[in-house]
């Protein structure tokens, strides 16, 4: 007979996985809509967001309840703390997917810009990233972290390149400014989506190992990447409370 507490944890797990799945689909759909100029799909994405919000709420409430009524410690504590963070990150990701969906309409004309940009690669990468994100939430397999970080770096680089290219094109033909600007905004949102994914990966490491790992990145203007992957390990802390306060 499973303990009530463990059933609650399992409930949280299930909801989190569901949330990840839905958000991943939202992002995939946004990519598809972008590539194909599919306004109908964009509308669906915007509709789905309600579902995402609802689930976000439910997860928050569940975490709150578990905190108040049990006194979780160790892995359980880390899991619930991280669930709140992951939940938040997923919800934001969903928001950005919706943000992209809103702009699909504005991209119906002047689609030659899009074809020029060769978005296919980045889109494929992002879809792969979504796969990895769902996988790491489901399996809590910290071996996936390196893959996620690497892919994330790659995407950042590509987005930077694309951004530069759009500016180039804008300088050449002023009539595409509206499309170009919207595209730029979309790129920003893609970058945010990628950033949240690395956050989620870091949270999963915290659940499993209790370590705080940070993946920081600086991309210089002329496409040179300076990659800081700091591993700040904060394990058993031997300072006293007083020492820590200082």
């Amino acid at each position: 007979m499973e303990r009530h507490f463990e059933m609650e944890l399992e409930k949280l797990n299930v909801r989190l996985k569901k949330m990840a799945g839905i958000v991943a689909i939202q992002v995939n759909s946004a990519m598809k809509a972008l590539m194909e100029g599919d306004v109908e799909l964009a509308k669906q994405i915007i509709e789905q967001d309600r579902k995402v919000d609802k689930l976000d709420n439910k997860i928050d409430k569940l975490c709150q309840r578990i905190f108040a009524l049990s006194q979780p410690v160790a892995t359980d504590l880390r899991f619930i703390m991280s669930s709140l963070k992951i939940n938040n990150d997923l919800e934001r990701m969903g928001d950005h997917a919706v943000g992209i969906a809103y702009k699909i309409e504005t991209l119906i004309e002047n689609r030659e810009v899009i074809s020029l940009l060769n978005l296919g690669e980045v889109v494929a990468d992002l879809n792969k990233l979504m796969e990895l994100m769902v996988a790491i939430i489901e399996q809590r397999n910290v071996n996936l972290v390196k893959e996620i970080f690497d892919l994330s770096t790659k995407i950042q680089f590509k987005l930077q390149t694309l951004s530069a290219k759009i500016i180039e094109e804008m300088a050449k033909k002023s009539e595409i400014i509206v499309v170009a600007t919207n595209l730029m905004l979309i790129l920003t949102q893609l970058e945010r989506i990628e950033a949240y994914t690395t956050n989620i990966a870091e949270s999963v490491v915290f659940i499993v190992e209790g370590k705080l790992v940070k993946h920081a990145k600086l991309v210089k203007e002329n496409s040179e990447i300076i990659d800081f992957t700091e591993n700040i390990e904060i394990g058993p802390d031997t300072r006293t409370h007083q020492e820590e306060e200082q």
Partner: protein
Amino acid sequence: MAEAKIRSRNLTLHYGNKMALDNVTLDIHAKQVTALIGPSGCGKSTFLRTLNRMNDLIPFVKISGEVLVDNYNIYEDKVDVVNLRKKIGMVFQKSNPFAKSVFENIAYGPKINGIKDKKKLTEIVEFSLQRAAIWDEVKDRLNDSALGLSGGQQQRLCIARTIAINPEIILMDEPASALDPISTSKIEELIFQLKTDYTIVIVTHNMQQAARVSDNTAFFYMGELVEFGRTKSIFTVPSKKQTEDYITGRFG
């Protein structure tokens, strides 16, 4: 880094043929609170009682290894146990005030130590009762029987009684387990205040209490010390699975 007030080194204890402590090596840091946790029968109380040699009272006890207090092995033959116990006070699970007045209870320790001067005794009694956060409640009842106090008050009285002998170390064996929640939190608050002056070792079967009150936690299982570390690490990132299973309630 706080220096170790008490250190046990390879401490093994048998009750007759039964092993109660298995090769325990542990440092208790000065002026900090160290909690000993673990399931029933894991040896935590036994370990506590080796620190002031209360196990000597039990027949057929065999001890090997060392317990060093201020770097001096208290199990050496020439150690004066009576004096040792003046340096290390103990508070028990069930409060055990003597059938005397409040004043006489607190004055018992100093009197045993030869203090006869009435004025000095009164000072010590007042100081101890204040330090134990019970002065206001008993200052008008000093000559009444201690048995008339409530459970929580009696326990704080016992703490005051221990403070009166001016120990350096206070050992507490599940001090709040027989008390209601409000008395328990008073005792926990008291422990917070006391650690500025005394080194405290507390045995508790209540993990939340250990988490609330202690700086360091030692987890015992079947006589062995499984893990020892800062309390906040033990409760957020324990390094042994056994520890994790115990504190998350998955066994024990």
